[in-house]
Structures are given as structure tokens and as C-alpha cells.
């Protein structure tokens, strides 16, 4: 197999990252607070949008995993030189990337549980919608951590990287219809929203939960295919990039 990225060494590094993240209480609590603030903001603007905002908060939280991976990967590479400790060993470069991503995701399980709990309490979703939600969150995870890890390798100064993380997160997470329904967007922007991974993910969940949003079958297919292809392509590219960038030229 070309890529051996999920083996016992990867799990070992996943646990390492999980422990690193869980030692910092802010890391656990901050994402919940951020989503809480955004939800209150949307509720004040229009209480009818709260279900969209809750689905959006789940998608946005997952998208933020990329920002976390980007900052963590950059910090421990530039400041602590930890790849130089971990990569000369049995842990593969792909395992290093995947383990870091899974560890960071693991430390945020609480955020997803809280948001999913509130969603189920305020607007119980159908089984199909939950299934679609799980699938799109997985795709967004693959996309965002890949993007975050790739960007982290492009800079030699970890402070220079952080603004990019914020820009990317806002560009993908706030601007497109993630926290608000697709129908509020001018019609001519619709196709673009359906090919952006975050808004495509939100639209697919809303489409699966009948009545939340009205999208044609062509639109659903466009969103599903785009999200799948973007996630897989970027993930595979980043696996290869992780291997390539493990050794400087």
C-alpha cells in the first residue's frame, strides 16, 4: 500500500496529541463558547434561523479543526522542532499528519456532543439527516485538516501563519450559507455555494431534513459530488505532501 497512515504508531501519536490538547482547558471550552456566541448572535437576528445555525455550527466547528491543525502543526514544527523528534522513527509522515488531526478532533468531541444535543432538543432530525450529517462532517474533516496541514508547511514563521488560518476559516465558514439557509443567498451565487465544502455540507443536511431547504436533485448531486471529490483529492494530496515535506530539500 502506498500510504500506511493508520497503524499502531499513528494511534500512539493520536493519543499523544489528545493528551497535549486536553491539558489545556481553554482548548476544550473555547470552541463551545465560540459556537455559543455565534448561535446567540443568529438567534437575536432571527430566531427562525436557529436550526440552520445549529447545523452550521456543527459544520463550522468541524471546519475549525483545520485551523487548529494548521496552528498546532506550525507551532510544533517551527518553535519546538518536534517533527525532528517524531519523524526519524517508525511513525510515518502520513501517520504524523493523521494522528495529529485525529487527536485534535478527539479533544473537540465535547463541542460536537453539546451542539448535537441542542439540535436534537430544539429540532429533532430524521435518521437520514443524522446519517447525512455524520457523512458530511467526515468529509469536511478530511478537507479542512488537509488544507490546514498543507498551509502549515508553507511558512517558516508560525506567527505569520495564524492570520491565514483566520482568513480561511472565515472565508469558508462565515461568508457562505453555513449559518444561514441557501435560499437567502442571491440565486446566481447558489452553484458556487454548492461547490464550497462547508456550504455544500450544510445544504446536504438541510436537504436531507425535508422542508429546511429546497434544492433540486441536480443541486444535491452537485453538492455531494463536489464535497466528496474535494475532500478525497485534498486528503490524498496532503498525505503525499506530508511524505514529501518530511525531508527538507
Amino acid at each position, binding site marked *: 500500500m502506498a500510504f500506511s497512515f493508520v497503524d499502531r504508531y499513528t494511534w500512539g501519536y493520536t*493519543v499523544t496529541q489528545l493528551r497535549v490538547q486536553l491539558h489545556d482547558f481553554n482548548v476544550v471550552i473555547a470552541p463551545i463558547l465560540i459556537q455559543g456566541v455565534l448561535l446567540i448572535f443568529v438567534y437575536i437576528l432571527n430566531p427562525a434561523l436557529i436550526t440552520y445555525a445549529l447545523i452550521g455550527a456543527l459544520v463550522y466547528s468541524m471546519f475549525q479543526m483545520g485551523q487548529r491543525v494548521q496552528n498546532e502543526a506550525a507551532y510544533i514544527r517551527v518553535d519546538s522542532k518536534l517533527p525532528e523528534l517524531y519523524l526519524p*522513527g517508525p511513525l510515518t509522515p502520513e501517520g504524523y499528519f493523521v494522528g495529529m488531526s485525529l487527536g485534535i478532533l478527539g479533544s473537540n468531541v465535547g463541542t460536537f456532543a453539546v451542539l448535537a444535543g441542542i439540535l436534537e432538543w430544539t429540532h429533532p432530525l430524521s435518521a437520514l439527516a443524522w446519517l447525512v450529517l455524520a457523512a458530511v462532517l467526515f468529509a469536511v474533516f478530511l478537507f479542512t485538516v488537509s488544507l490546514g496541514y498543507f498551509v502549515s508547511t508553507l511558512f517558516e514563521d508560525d506567527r505569520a501563519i495564524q492570520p491565514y488560518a483566520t482568513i480561511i476559516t472565515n472565508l469558508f465558514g462565515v461568508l457562505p450559507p453555513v449559518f444561514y439557509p441557501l435560499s437567502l443567498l442571491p440565486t446566481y451565487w447558489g452553484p458556487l455555494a454548492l461547490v464550497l465544502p462547508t456550504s455544500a455540507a450544510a445544504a446536504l443536511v438541510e436537504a436531507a431534513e425535508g422542508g429546511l431547504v429546497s434544492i433540486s436533485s441536480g443541486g444535491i448531486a452537485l453538492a455531494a459530488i463536489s464535497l466528496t471529490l474535494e475532500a478525497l483529492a485534498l486528503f490524498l494530496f496532503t498525505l503525499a505532501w506530508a511524505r514529501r515535506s518530511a525531508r*527538507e530539500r
Partner: protein
Amino acid sequence: MAEDALWARDVQKRYERRGTQPVDALRGVSLSIRPGERVGLLGRNGAGKTTFLRIASTLLWPTSGEVRVFGHDIVNHPEEGRPLIAVVPQDGKPFMHLTPYEQVYTYLRTRGFDRATSKQRTTEVLGQMGLTEVADRLNLALSGGLRQRVMVATVIATEAPLLFLDEPTIGMDPFARREVWECLRRLSKKGSTLLLTTHYLDEAEQLSDRLYIIDRGRVLVEGSPEGLKAQIGGTIRVSLKGGMRLKETLATFGTVATDGLDVHVILGPDRVEEVLQLALREKLSATVGPVSLEEAFLRVVGRSIDDES
């Protein structure tokens, strides 16, 4: 015949960056290290030590040359050599939000050791490195010297067949340095091979069976610390502070090496008194001692190890 733990032939590295002149960091380094040996790589800043170590530990591509780790070609197939090595990187830091215990334990788990072995080795190595008292504090709260000890402990605990240590005791106090030396000797007795770079010549002398002195990307000389000292033509060193102006006169007594404005004269015991008389007449402060590796280094490289020029 057993494979060399590390074998390198004609390793060259040229750094090329847009808008700057290319820099030849390595100009054909060849060396070999037998299993179980402790070898020191000495050189001034920028001599190429870290570049070589990073190439040998699969973190940097060489421009040309061959490197083998226990027979595995790690230039073309780094994945074959990686499980056999462990590295203390220069200026590396442990995870700030782990404790020393967690750092070592999780690192061992990441390298595939089972829980019981990882726990046992972690407790053992933290004890040997004098880290037991701080084992449960976050690395964030430790001093720079203690963090460096955690890094070394993390790597030592692996007992990997080949260890690369880039300035392993930097920032440590003299007691801590000795604890690290003891741990490295113990590890070597168990069979691990060590390649270390250091700026501390006493450390190189204490820890190395053999030394390679490199300068400007080339190996200048190779040999045991005793062998290198024996090459310089004397057993006693007289150092004269500010003795540069007497360099030519002093050269008539023995071999002279300069270190800034100071002069070291390497000579036999029969002529020491004459040099001291000269120092008294010229009102220069002088110290007498056995020849050290520092003199050998000065003789070979022509400059002090701390000389940045």
C-alpha cells in the same frame, strides 16, 4: 562482518535559495561508525555538523552521496532506516502541555512499545536523568535545562540501535551534563550506537570513542581523543593570556596555537619553566595544564571552536 551502524560516502549538500549565493554546507563527507561505538562530530558553528546529522537522520536530502544505516540506503529508502534511529534535535523542545512522564511514555507508545515496557522505561529513564521530582509537572513550567533533559530522556528511553544527538547537553548545568553522560555510557554498553555533536570539548572527550573534526563541510581529521592529542607534539599546555605579541618567541619552545589574543604553547615538561619565566618578565598571566582536546582542535582547525569568523 557486521554492517556499519552508519556509513556515509562523499556526502555533499549545497543550499540554494533564490536571490542568494549557493552555500556548500558539506563538500564530500565520508565516515563510518561501527555498531556500539560512540562518535563525536566536532566543528565550529557552520562547519556542517548539523547538516550532516540531519541528512543521516533522514530529515534533509543530500545534494549527492550515499548514506547507509545498518546497511539500509536511507537516501533513497528513508523508511527502511527510520525505525532504527532516534534523534535529539538541536534546539528542540518537548510538548509544552505534557508532563515529562507523559512525554517519554507517549513517545515510546508512538514508537510501538507496549504499555508495560513504556511505563517501566519511562520511570527508569526519568530517575536516571534526575527528573523524577518534576515528572508530573507540565513541561511549560520547567526551565530550559530541564526541558532539554526531557528531550534527551525521551530519546534515550527508546534504546534505538542508532542515536543522533545534536548538542544534547546545551543549556544544562555541569551536574546535569554528567548525569546525561552517564546515561549515554549506560546506553552504549547496552549496544546502542551514538553520534553526537557538541560544542563542549570536555564532553566530546568524555563520551567519544572516536572523533571526526569537520570544518567548512569537510572532514579534517579522525581519531580517538587520545590519538588526536598525541598528534600535537607535547604533553603540557602553557596558556598565556594576551600573549599574541610573543607568538614568534613562544614558537621556539614548542607548538603554538592562538585563540584570539591568547596563545597556547604545547611543549614537553623540560621547557615549561623557561616559558613561565618569560611570562613573568612580560607580566602576562599564564596557566599550566595537561594538553586537552581543545589544543588538538585548535591545531587541526586553526581556530577555537567558539570562533565565529
